[in-house]
């Protein structure tokens, strides 16, 4: 099986699995328990927190709250950091856990900045909106999950904070963390969301980072864990496994980046050598972990199913359905309906190989030639 759908989720690494099993077996205690088991569990929890904070250049007095994943982290940021009546700016390219959450907020005015053709936030439009309005809260993702386009968050933060230094800037870093540098001091952000299962860690665990001094309101209530900001017994096996995997990813970030970059480049090379008719969605120099392409005269979902018969698993931006042919992100980049319907997303991981890239590229060409001729 060739798995090229790593942007949706990844296979847990041996390191992650071993750690998860080890903690499940030997440190299964409740972190809040007063006995020595609980104390040991709490130490593991705090160590995991420190590991992740270190991996993003966070300070010891910053807050890192573990939660069930990036969707919850993003919801915590939106509902916990943006005050009632806050003026909010986000982009058309955000993940549904940000975009739909903002759509749900009732007492806020929310502006959506469009995307440029390369998939990044349209920086001119962003500047215009900042000039015209006074935003309390901004959320812009670092790497787009569909196209791999990388936003220049440091620059966007600079633009926003130069108008209003009190603006809270949050960034969804789910597709970036462990793959490209995510350093909160360099980015200048106030909060970020990260997730474990996108970097070969276990599912069901993520975190929200919040800079020291910012007031976060909880969105769930209960036993008061995580300083009362996210109640519920801590999922320690997943938390420790996440931290161990994240540390490993950040340590090998450059080597992994180069490996995956070659995979993406090899696919593009094979397409070019075969004069294959396709269009890259987003910036070709975006994240090497994601390659989004549109194929004229082919339905992305049909190609997906053709490839799955060959044991090749990929993603698609749109279902082959007359009722759901829209894709907000590709649409905002100016793609036509046919380009959206013909979209596929290849997303890579460190376990993928050049041989797999060659096989997949050739199979895509073969199936597209067939589908274009029926």
């Amino acid at each position: 099986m060739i798995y090229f759908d790593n942007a949706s989720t990844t296979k847990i690494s041996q390191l992650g699995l071993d750690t998860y099993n080890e903690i499940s077996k030997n440190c299964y205690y409740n972190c809040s328990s007063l006995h020595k088991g609980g104390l040991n569990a709490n130490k593991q929890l705090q160590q995991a927190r420190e590991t992740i904070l270190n991996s993003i250049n966070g300070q010891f007095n910053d807050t890192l709250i573990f939660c069930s994943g990036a969707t919850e982290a993003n919801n915590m940021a939106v509902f916990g950091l943006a005050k009632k009546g806050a003026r909010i700016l986000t982009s058309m390219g955000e993940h549904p856990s940000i975009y739909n959450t903002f759509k749900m907020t009732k007492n806020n005015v929310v502006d959506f900045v469009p995307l440029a053709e390369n998939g990044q936030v349209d920086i001119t439009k962003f500047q215009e909106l900042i000039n015209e309005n006074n935003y309390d809260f901004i959320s812009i993702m670092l790497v787009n999950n569909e196209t791999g386009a990388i936003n220049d968050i440091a620059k966007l933060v600079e633009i926003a904070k130069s108008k209003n230094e009190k603006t809270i800037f949050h960034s969804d870093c789910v597709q970036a963390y462990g793959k490209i540098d995510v350093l909160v001091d360099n980015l200048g952000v106030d909060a970020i969301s990260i997730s474990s299962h996108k970097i070969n860690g276990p599912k069901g665990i993520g975190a929200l980072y919040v800079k020291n001094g910012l007031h976060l309101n909880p969105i769930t209530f209960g036993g008061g864990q995580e300083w009362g900001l996210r109640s519920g017994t801590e999922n320690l096996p997943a938390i420790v496994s996440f931290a161990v995997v994240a540390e490993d990813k950040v340590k090998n970030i450059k080597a992994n980046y180069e490996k995956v970059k070659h995979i993406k480049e090899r696919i593009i090379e094979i397409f070019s050598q075969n004069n294959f008719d396709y269009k890259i969605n987003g910036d070709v120099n975006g994240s090497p972990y994601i390659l989004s392409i549109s194929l004229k005269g082919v339905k992305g979902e049909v190609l997906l199913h053709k490839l799955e018969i060959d044991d090749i698993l990929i993603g698609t931006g749109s279902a082959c359905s007359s009722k759901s042919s829209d894709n907000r992100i590709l649409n905002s980049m100016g793609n036509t309906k046919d380009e959206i319907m013909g979209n596929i997303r290849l997303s890579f991981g460190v376990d993928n190989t050049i041989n797999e890239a060659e096989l997949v590229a050739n199979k895509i060409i073969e199936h597209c030639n067939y589908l274009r001729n029926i």
Partner: protein
Amino acid sequence: MQRLIILRYSEIHLKGSNRGFFEKCLYDNTVKAIEDIKATVEKGGARYIVKDYDAKDEKKLISRLTKVFGYNWLSVALCVENDPDKILQAVNEIKISNCTFRVTTRRADKNFPISSNEFSAMVGEIVLKNNANLKVNLDNFDKELKVDIRENGYTFLYLDSIKCVGGMPTGCAGKAICLLSGGIDSPVAIYKIAKRGAKIYAVHFHSYPYTSERAKQKVVDLAKILSQYCGKMKLYCVSFTKVQEEIHKKCDPKLMITIMRRIMMRVTEKLAHRLKCKAIVTGESLGQVASQTMEGIMSSNSVVSMPVFRPLIGDDKNDIIDVAKQIGTFDTSILPYEDCCTVFLPRNPIIKPQLDYVAKQEQNLDIEQLVKDCLKNIEIIEINP
């Protein structure tokens, strides 16, 4: 004193000398519907009684039995001997919330020492003693407590009747093969025809990889919901990919749906003969989509000789949706996995296909071979409730 469930027939009591056949069918279906629950089923007049079950299973039994075609109503009853003191003692077990009520006694056991009206009054007195907020109203009542003193020496006491699905016992009307897509209509059509006593075989045409495995799974899920009413059934999944590709390549694109439907009907009829089914069932409703015009229906009907039942032909979409919601298929039907890929859907399908033109276009295809290929590539899925 024991609790039991009384099931009342629907129209079986109208049957004459062949009533026994329908009763046997209903009995078998009832036993099958609750075969995994410890309980006994016995006949008692024009009704069946389910008894000897654990109290914890009562709700599950009710849920299953209300879905057995052939029953109109069921009631949970207390059963005691025909002894006035024992009956009056059992009345204390019956709780009635604040409302108006009446007591109706039916005294089939003529040896019972107290008259019906007199005994109703005695029962009512106990009910009122247990809840002083209740009011008696013999004509305009919210609840009716029935006291059924039977000839066999036992009395049933029951309060509420629960509506069952009605219809005729599944299987009593023979076998039918039904086209099942992933949409809203065909599951409702199957439900309606099964309700009239047909044993159902379902056939689904899929065009993987042009449609997803999830579209097929959706149909399996729909069949599973339907099996709660129809009982175990077999779903025949026919790969239709090759047929669609051939039509797409060789025929007028405007006739795509028309020719597809005709080949589906041919395949279904062949399968029906194999399974000894006597009718084909479709979910067509007149004028609902381009292929469901009179001309479109005539076109698909003309390639088969077996009767084609279309239980929804005169129904509005909203009426069909109401039934789909009521039987629990709607939420699955509206999942966004379609059974026909947009690759093959013409922009402007012909609404009124001319038979001679359709036949001429079909000459571009080796219909006989395509039908044979379809029949060779069938996956049979056993569906259990």
